[in-house]
């Protein structure tokens, strides 16, 4: 084993690839060799680093110095200053004043604990980090019923949106006597502002695969599908590689680890429809149909894909499973808040000093997330609201900054937790304008199957456009709330039931803005 003085982690993602990260790495390695530092400085290609900078981003450990927008031309200066002379190059640092370094709480992470540390394209690194130990335990030491009992005990709730207890979901499918059962992974992440699943898959694809394997073992499925959106090219590539590696290592296929358990995992690519994030619509799409949701019951757990019992789980949910099985439910229960164990991955966007991602305990307040993980508000801006949960989310005003973010505390707003998107607005930005953009999105994405959603989304968009232009009245605002409420009560699936959250929270917490704009 070689020891290095410093490790340079280079984030490989869509943005950095486009900024020419491959050329950059080549240049960096050449320059280090030229200075005879190749034995001292290790260059690692990895997944998401935990902050979003421009262009090519680097994290240097153990110094914990972060750079952004580094170009090939900068390489000689960077190597000379930082690696030869040991002075971080402030010109390129994430925060040039050097005051803020993103908080990497790796000791408190579950699903992102390897992300940005190991090479996501290497199964050996995943195994080296303790990967596939949970699978071994699940296959060789536990019965399927034990796995389900452990997951139930852990209190893991679905991270897709609804927050349904995962163990309970599995327990519906496990006892059914069927010739074929399926696991379907919902990786069709389409909620605006949400991309935590992309980061999980890009950063640590094997962890998801291990979660799928354990879930399949628990419910008796022998085939799993990952339904992923076509735009996530890098995720698809990495998952394909990971699946091929597993086959080579005998972790997929027939008689895995000589336990008699068979499993195949395949990737299916979506074609761009928000509604396909709804589990029954997703199943329809997998079967080669329009992505219209199905009537429930029967639930997919009983009759899903090709009428076979099917467990549909979100990426983040499954990524939690290996940790629970390996360490036991009791360890998992020590994370998070009372009544809501575990962690949650958030992506923080908008007018904060350092947009980024974080994984924190369930129940962490919005204030902590913004201040400690995103460096507070951007200089010169004041907090006005945070749109939490994307388009199907809620506007949280300043007075709600200290609410614990977990399922029990957000109660009526709990569904927004799944997506984990936090979009921060400053005092100059208009909530009405944001609501317009949200309702425009819903108008486009309504699948058209049921009348309340199909017509309701049109009417909501018409009303908010009128209000935005200054031609509306407070009656229009009330009508909007009442339409959204009707949609909530009568729509076929969660899509039509969602606009009420954004509409009601905007009108409740920012009424002044509506009064102001309708007065004109």
């Amino acid at each position, binding site marked *: 084993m070689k020891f290095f003085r410093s490790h340079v982690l280079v984030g490989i993602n869509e943005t950095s690839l*486009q900024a020419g990260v491959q050329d950059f790495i080549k240049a960096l390695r050449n320059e280090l060799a030229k200075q005879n530092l190749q034995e001292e400085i290790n260059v690692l290609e990895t997944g998401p680093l935990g902050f979003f900078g421009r262009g090519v981003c680097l994290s240097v450990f153990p110094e914990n110095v972060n750079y952004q927008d580094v170009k090939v031309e900068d390489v000689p200066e960077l190597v000379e200053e930082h690696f030869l002379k040991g002075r971080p190059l402030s010109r390129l640092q994430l925060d040039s004043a050097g005051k803020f370094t993103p908080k990497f709480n790796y000791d408190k992470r579950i699903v992102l604990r390897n992300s940005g540390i190991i090479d996501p394209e290497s199964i050996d690194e995943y195994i080296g980090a303790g990967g596939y130990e949970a699978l071994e335990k699940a296959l060789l030491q536990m019965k399927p019923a034990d796995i389900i009992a452990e997951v139930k005990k852990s209190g893991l709730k679905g991270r897709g949106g609804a927050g349904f207890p995962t163990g309970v979901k599995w327990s519906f499918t496990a006892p059914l006597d069927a010739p074929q059962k399926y696991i379907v992974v919902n990786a069709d*992440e389409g909620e605006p502002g949400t*991309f935590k699943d992309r980061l999980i898959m890009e950063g640590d694809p094997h962890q998801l695969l291990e979660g799928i394997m354990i879930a399949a073992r628990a419910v008796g499925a022998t085939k799993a599908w990952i339904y992923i959106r076509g735009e996530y090219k890098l995720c698809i590539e990495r998952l394909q590689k990971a699946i091929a590696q597993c086959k080579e290592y005998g972790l997929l296929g027939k008689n895995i680890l000589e336990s008699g358990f068979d499993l195949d995992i395949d990737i299916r690519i979506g*074609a*761009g*429809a928000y509604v396909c994030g709804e589990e029954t619509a997703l199943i329809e799409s997998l079967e*080669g149909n329009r992505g219209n949701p199905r009537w429930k019951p029967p639930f997919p757990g009983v009759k899903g894909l090709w009428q076979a019992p099917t467990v549909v789980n979100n990426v983040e949910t499954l990524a939690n499973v290996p940790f629970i099985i390996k360490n036991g439910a009791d360890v998992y229960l020590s994370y998070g808040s009372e009544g809501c164990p575990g962690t949650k991955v958030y*992506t923080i*966007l908008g007018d904060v000093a350092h947009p980024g991602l974080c994984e924190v305990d369930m129940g962490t307040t919005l204030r902590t997330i913004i201040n400690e993980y995103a460096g507070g508000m951007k200089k010169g801006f004041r907090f006005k609201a945070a749109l939490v949960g994307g388009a199907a989310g809620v506007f949280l005003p300043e007075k709600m900054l200290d609410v614990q973010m977990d399922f029990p505390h957000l109660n009526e707003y709990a569904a927004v937790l799944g997506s984990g998107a936090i979009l921060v*607005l400053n005092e100059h930005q208009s909530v009405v304008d944001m609501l317009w953009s949200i309702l425009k999105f819903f108008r486009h994405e309504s699948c058209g199957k049921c009348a309340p959603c199909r017509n309701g989304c049109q009417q909501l968009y018409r009303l908010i456009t009128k209000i935005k232009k200054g031609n509306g009245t407070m009656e229009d605002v009330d009508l909007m709330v009442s339409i959204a409420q009707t949609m909530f009560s009568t729509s076929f699936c969660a899509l039509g039931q969602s606009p009420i959250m954004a509409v009601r929270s905007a009108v409740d917490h920012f009424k002044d803005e509506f009064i102001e704009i309708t007065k004109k």
Partner: protein
Amino acid sequence: MYLEICQKYAPEKDNLIYILHDIQDTHPQHYISEEAVQVVSEYLKVPPNHIFGVLTFYTMYSTKPRGKNIIRLCESPPCYIKGSENILRKLKTQLGVETGETTKDGLFTLELCACLGVCGNAPVMMVNNDVYGDLTEEKVEDILARIARGNQ
């Protein structure tokens, strides 16, 4: 030609979405013609109306001929708040087309799309398979010029 593409996949309905992707990606005008629908229908033994239904449901498919390069600008809230409308205006004037139209030289088609999941770098657009983030009006000009040069 369409039949050859179909034959890469087993004649089962759940391959429909794949076959349509393949046909569209390999067509120089990036669309799915009526003729293609007929061929797929016969191959999969699925009525053409079902295929047309699927085709028009998903935003990634087009039933109209499109340009050589497809620009998809995100208009979802996180990009909207970062000024995607200004970028749209810039794209329209630069290309001389409205949303959904193709430039006269057939080089670009301008489309809007929903969240691409790269919101950390909003505003964002995709040109074919490449993502471009942190867009500014100058950057857009530069990207378009670069692609146009590459296509000469």
